[in-house]
C-alpha cells in the first residue's frame, strides 16, 4: 500500500462518468470476500452526507439560521469532470464530531420531478440520523425547533434508539436520535440470525419466482436457526 503514497491516479484522468465515480454494475459474480484476503477495512464514523438542493436560500436559512449549525466550508467551482456537469456550490454545515451535512447546488439547473419529495416510506428510507448524547438534548431539540416554528414528529422509541423527525425545505427527512442502551454481544448474534433467516427466505422465494411473502416466514425460519444456535456447542 505505501507505494501509492503521493502518486495516486486522479479522478480527472477518468474517461467517463461511471469511471470517475466508481459506478459498477452491481454484479457480484467474480468478486472476493473480506475473509479471502484477510484485510480488515475500517471506517471511523461519518465525514459528511450530501444531497442536492435547488433551494439555496431556504437551505442555508434552515440549517444555518434556524437549526443554528455553523457553515464551515464551501466549494464553488466550474463544472468539471463528466460532460454537462453544472457549475456548482458544495457547502457544509457542522454536525458534530467532525461530521458535516453537505449540499450541492447545481447552478442553472431545475429540479427534475423525480428528485422531489414523495409521501411514501420508500422515499423516507433515505435519510441520515444525527446523534445527540442524552435524553435532555433530544427534548431540547424537539422543544426548541417547535418554538422556532418547525413541525417535529412525536418521539419514537425504537429498540435501541429514541428519535424525532422533521423535514428540511427540500423535503429531505432529518432524524435526531439518541442511543437508549449500548448494544451487547447478543444483539450482534441476533442480527446475524435474523439476517441469515431473511437471506434464506429471499433465496428460496427467488427460486420459486416469488417475492418474500411476509415477515412471519422469516420469524419461523429464525425460530429454527435459534433452536440450532441454542443447541450448538459454542
Amino acid at each position: 500500500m505505501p507505494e501509492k503514497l503521493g502518486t495516486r491516479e486522479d479522478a480527472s484522468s477518468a474517461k467517463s462518468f461511471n469511471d470517475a465515480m466508481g459506478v459498477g454494475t452491481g454484479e457480484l459474480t467474480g468478486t472476493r470476500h473480506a475473509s479471502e484476503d484477510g484485510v480488515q477495512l475500517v471506517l471511523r464514523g461519518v465525514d459528511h452526507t450530501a444531497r442536492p438542493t435547488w433551494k439555496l436560500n431556504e437551505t442555508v436559512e434552515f440549517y444555518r439560521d434556524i437549526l443554528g449549525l455553523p457553515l464551515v466550508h464551501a466549494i464553488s467551482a466550474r463544472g468539471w469532470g463528466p460532460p454537462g456537469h453544472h457549475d456548482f456550490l458544495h457547502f457544509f454545515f457542522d454536525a458534530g464530531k467532525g461530521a458535516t451535512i453537505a449540499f450541492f447546488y447545481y447552478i442553472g439547473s431545475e429540479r427534475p420531478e423525480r428528485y422531489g419529495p414523495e409521501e411514501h416510506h420508500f422515499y423516507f428510507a433515505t435519510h441520515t440520523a444525527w446523534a445527540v448524547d442524552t435524553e435532555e438534548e433530544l427534548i431540547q431539540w424537539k422543544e426548541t425547533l417547535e418554538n422556532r416554528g418547525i413541525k417535529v414528529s412525536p418521539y419514537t422509541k425504537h429498540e435501541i434508539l429514541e428519535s424525532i423527525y422533521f423535514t428540511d425545505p427540500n423535503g429531505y427527512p432529518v432524524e435526531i436520535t439518541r442511543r437508549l442502551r449500548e448494544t451487547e454481544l447478543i444483539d450482534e448474534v441476533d442480527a446475524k440470525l435474523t439476517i441469515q433467516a431473511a437471506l434464506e427466505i429471499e433465496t428460496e422465494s427467488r427460486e420459486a419466482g416469488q417475492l418474500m411473502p411476509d415477515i412471519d416466514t422469516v420469524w419461523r425460519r429464525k425460530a429454527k436457526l435459534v433452536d440450532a444456535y441454542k443447541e450448538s456447542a459454542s
Partner: protein
Amino acid sequence: MIEVHVIDVPEFRPMVETQRDNPEVTISGPVKGYWTIQAPTQLTFSRKAMKMKPAVWYGIFTGGLNGEIAEWGRDEVRVIGTNRPL
C-alpha cells in the same frame, strides 16, 4: 407446540415477565441470550401489559416464532400452533 424465542435485552424482556404467572406456558432460559416461551395451543401478548410502544410491539417476534399469528391488533396479539414448515 408454540415456541417464541425472546432476546434477553431490556426492550423484549417484558414478553417473558408478563407470561411468568401464566400456567399454560413454560419459560426457559436465558440460554445463550435467548428466553424461550412454550405454549401448547395458544399464546397471547398484551402491548399495554408489556408497556411497549408500537415501534417495538410490531417487532416482538424478531427472536423467532414457531407458530402462526392468528390475530394482531394494536394492543393484543394471539399466536396459535401451526404445522407450517420453519
